[in-house]
């Protein structure tokens, strides 16, 4: 049911995007090719639901 390529870290920045991501902000995760336009979230992945 869950796609193994989901649960991607924050998307890499567009080349045209002025904002630069601070190196300190990058989470310590393995690099997975992330889609710029879509991010998958687990419906169970929200804290505050038992």
């Amino acid at each position: 049911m869950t796609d193994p390529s989901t649960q991607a870290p924050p998307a890499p920045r567009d080349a045209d995007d002025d904002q630069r991501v601070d190196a300190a902000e990058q989470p310590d995760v393995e690099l997975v090719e992330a889609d710029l336009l879509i991010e998958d979230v687990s419906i169970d992945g929200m804290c505050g639901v038992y």
Partner: protein
Amino acid sequence: MPADAVSSGRLVDHFEAGLDAPICLTWELTYACNLACIHCLSSSGRRDPRELTTAECFGVIDELQAMQVFYVNIGGGEPTVRRDFWEILDYATTHDVGVKFSTNGSRITAENAARLAASDYVDVQISLDGASASVNDAIRGPGSFVTATEALERWAEAGMRSFKISVVVTRTNVDQLDEFEALADRFGAQLRLTRLRPSGRGADVWEELHPTAPQQRQLYDWLLPRGDKVLTGDSFFHLAAYGQPLPGLNLCGAGRVVCLIDPIGDVYACPFAIHEAFRAGNIRTTGGFTAVWRTSELFQDLRRPQTGGACASCSHFDSCRGGCMAAKFFTGLPLDGPDPECVLGNGESLLSKLPDRAVPRPSADHSRRTPRRPISPCEPSPLAGFEVTL
């Protein structure tokens, strides 16, 4: 924002600022329960006479449909003890609101298991806190392990597609993680491990039941390689400070993407924070749930950028976000400081520095006052099991 502008910042940043509607939420249908689990986050047992009526429940669902809430997690107490439970379930699924309900399994029959298996819009989750009867029943009461496994068997036999075993990880069951996995595989269920919070009756057993620091690490090491396979309800985001975060949003969703509606219509930031300090309003007031979600002072407060306080200078703050609000609140720790289970030990050391701190008690307690002794089915007296106290 221009149509082609890619959302700046992370998904998490948008969610932290709150949404016009929850993505999903927890809805406790009743405080009545046939069990008396020692860690019950809602201190359930006795029905509250102010419980929402069937019509009022339908009204809540109408609102959730209009807000396009995708999913409601129905629990309690034990939701199936409400006579209108199945009616409410059907009303939700026929009004574009998906349902996952949480049960101890005591009212699951082959017949209603078949009904559930036929529905595409319902997921179910059985609560289990031990992979063996001895570990489980010490928390959930005699016979509860058997009740749960019988329900699992019925769902498996009925061809139920999406059912879960949901475990609250404690000091006593953390060594059974492999056995939980085996149990889930045996029934074709998905395993879900969640965090014990010092909420409700959980406050009374927190000291002796919450995992020790080494056990937390053991849990994290067990979960990480299992990725999406084992669910966690994002309840271990405080463990992200160990290194790679576990799957999930890794943020506190309370008042931002999720909340709780309780059996009498009170709206709380989350089910682990049933206390006046986290009560946003009541659905019975003008504007209903929608108005509470969108305009309550508490939720607007939670949606403002949080400073992080004492934790802000910690290099791990970005991943752990200062941990769980409810865990801090109910251990009497300041909300702008470390989580009691901070992986660096900052919570533990703060706790030892504040021995005289005030520890909040839940605003209401629906626990049964006179615990029932287990009764034999052959017992003729209708008063068996009840102790009379003056």
